[in-house]
């Protein structure tokens, strides 16, 4: 797997590159800012770009802007945005245009390289990745009449994994159940929540996140 890493803090960037290299991932280029990142993506055509959300010049949301540009201009390149913000708004904004091959992960997870590698693989497989902390914050959101109360524990578990961007097969593998059972759970969940027919696997992530937010 060929990866480009973009982070303006050298210490962090080098740490990430070292961990990825140790995990057998081919880091083909490093970038300090969005412009350099775009150049590398154009020239190396990587499988995934690993992008810090805050980069020069404003240190705000350059990463998200760069990610959306990459997804729009290089459909074969996936993007994983690393962020220090537990903000569903950012994650939703990131995936709203091109929900496939894109991910939003909290930066703290970088030190658990297995999680990062797993996310990169899922992105290469065309999945969406939303950090579990964000999903659990949304699922745990206080509601006046909680529609989630109508779900069984297993159904709620399935809903959470869908919101994290997992495919039915990935959910089945995680919960040690068959894919068919997962499908049944998903249909149930969508019916109970009044979400109608479940859309394709990529669009359903956004649908679920939006539902959880209201």
């Amino acid at each position, binding site marked *: 797997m060929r990866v480009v890493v973009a982070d303006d*803090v050298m*210490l*962090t960037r080098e*740490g990430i590159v*070292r*961990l990825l290299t140790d995990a057998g991932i081919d880091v083909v280029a490093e970038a300090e800012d969005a412009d350099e990142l775009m150049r590398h993506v154009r020239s190396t055509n990587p499988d995934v770009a690993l992008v810090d959300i*805050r980069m020069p010049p404003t*240190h*705000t*949301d350059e990463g998200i802007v760069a990610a959306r540009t990459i997804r729009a201009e290089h459909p074969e390149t996936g993007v994983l945005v690393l962020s*220090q*913000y*537990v*903000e*569903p*708004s*950012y994650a939703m*904004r990131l995936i709203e245009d091109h929900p496939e091959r894109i991910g939003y992960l*909290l*930066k*703290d997870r*970088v*030190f*658990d*390289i297995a999680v990062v590698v797993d996310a990169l693989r899922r992105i290469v497989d065309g999945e969406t990745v939303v950090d579990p902390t964000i999903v659990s*914050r*949304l699922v745990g*959101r*206080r*509601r*006046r009449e909680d529609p989630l109360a109508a779900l069984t524990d297993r159904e709620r578990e399935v809903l959470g994994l869908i919101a994290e961007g997992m495919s039915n097969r990935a959910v089945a593998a995680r919960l040690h159940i068959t894919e068919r059972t997962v499908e049944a759970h998903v249909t149930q969940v969508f019916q109970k929540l009044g979400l109608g027919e479940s859309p394709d696997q990529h669009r359903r992530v956004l649908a679920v996140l939006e539902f959880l*937010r209201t």
Partner: protein
Amino acid sequence: MPGEGCHNAPVASVSNQRLDPIPPVATAIAVAIGLVALAIARGPGRFTTYPGRSGAAAFTVVAGLSLILAGLVCWRSRSTARIGALAVSAGIVWFAPIYDGWEGGPTLVRSLGLVASPVLVPILLHLILAYPTGRLRSRVHRGLVVAVYGGAAIFTLGLALFRDPFFDQYCWSNCTVNVFLLFSSPVLARRLTDLDRWFDAAAAVVVVTSYAARIALGSNVERRALLPVAAPTVLIATAAVWRATTMTRLPLEDPLEPTFLRGFLVACFGVFLLGAALVWAVVRAWLERRAVARTVTSLGDAPLPGSLESALAMAVGDADLRIAYWLPGPGRYVSADGTLVDEPVAQPGRSVTALVRDDRRVAMVSHAGGISELGREMGAAVRLGLENERLQAEVLAHLVELRASRARIVEAGDAERRRLERDLHDGAQQRLLALSYDIRLALAAAEADRDGRAASSLRGAIDHTQGALAELRELAHGIYPAILAEAGLGPAIASLADSAPIPVEIDTSLEGRCPAPAEGAAYLLVADGIEDAARRSASIASVGIAREVGSRSVTFDDDGSQRRSEMIGVADRVGAVGGRLLLEGTTLRAEIPCE
């Protein structure tokens, strides 16, 4: 333009206005001179003077007396005293040619009449140029007046010293007497007489031109003020030119000759109208003063800032009139609503009047050039109103300053918090991340060495680091919610609701952003509102943000117990951006300016 109608003279207090005895005495003498002149014209001067003709006598006396009496009226009024004295003098000079033609009169009197006569046209032109205040507006006008008087002085002196009327072949009104004669030079005397009348004609044309320019280029106010002298200016100038041209044809100035008589009657009419215009100037000033006093009285007990300015502007008919109040403390000028303004300066067509009370500067008024002596026309009511409004402006200026400094403090605080948040992310967080990599490497090494104890304590270290990172993230978010600055109020409040301990329903229709301090105030209202609601065991809260013209209306409500906190922090923050927080039961409501 130095001195261009700039009356920066202190305005003295109105009291202690004693009656000056000079004007009535001078006027009485002038009237007597006029009446004696009439007697001379009807008697010994029947053939030598214009009023010798029965028809012209009445016109001459009416014209002269109109100048003298108008002069008295002006003299009595402080703002037009100068022009009053000038008009009385002009009235006296008006009768000089009659004394010159006093057949058999005292030689000294006749000679005085002779030398005074050439001053008539210059003094009339001076009156026109100085109308309506008596002050000359520009350097050009002052130069013109000096030149006209200078010329007249040269001719007068020359004629007095060198003209022996006896040898003047064209002499008519006085062919015998000149007590000032030094030596007789008929040729020089003739030249001087010719030059004098052409000089008068030329000066009259220049004054008409200058008057026309003032009317054409001046402000509306100025034009209105100058209009009354339009007819006198044209008539007097016509008479001067008429006389000069007629005398080229008929060098012998015979008052009984119809051509000369017609010119003289035009002059009579012009002088009479000049007198009327002078009286009108006084009446107009009085009307202005009354209008100002009345409008100011009608402002009521608690006029809004700036009412005095608009009242004054309306009263004097100058929409661009501005009052700048002087604040002695900071040494600056402010407008009535307390905002800083530049010191008013006189410009072409606009004058500045300093208003002083008890030797203290109160305000500067910039107004159209034609308004005469604005400061002097203000009565006690206006002065009190001005002082009042100055005090109000001072308080408002303090308020403006306070508001600005409050906003600056909030902005500085926000900037500092934002810097702190960035430092935490770029500093402590990055180091913790680096530390966690190292621990992970050590863990891998320990596992490879099968060192179970080291591995387990390293796993504990990883847990601690993870906890520290999470806490750091929350801390940074608490210090400064980055999403508020980057994504705006909507996402930031949604984020608050995500992690709130009670359900928060949001009803917003937000489009567009507000300045950061305004968004910060709205965010703080919701954040503190949620915290306070949870403390009062509310089970649900609601947030409404509505877009209004130039502001956002933020409402927060909950079903908790009665609110005890005054929400001072929120009120301060909302106040600092110029908004207002209202507490009604459990409802918080704020109007926050967003421009």
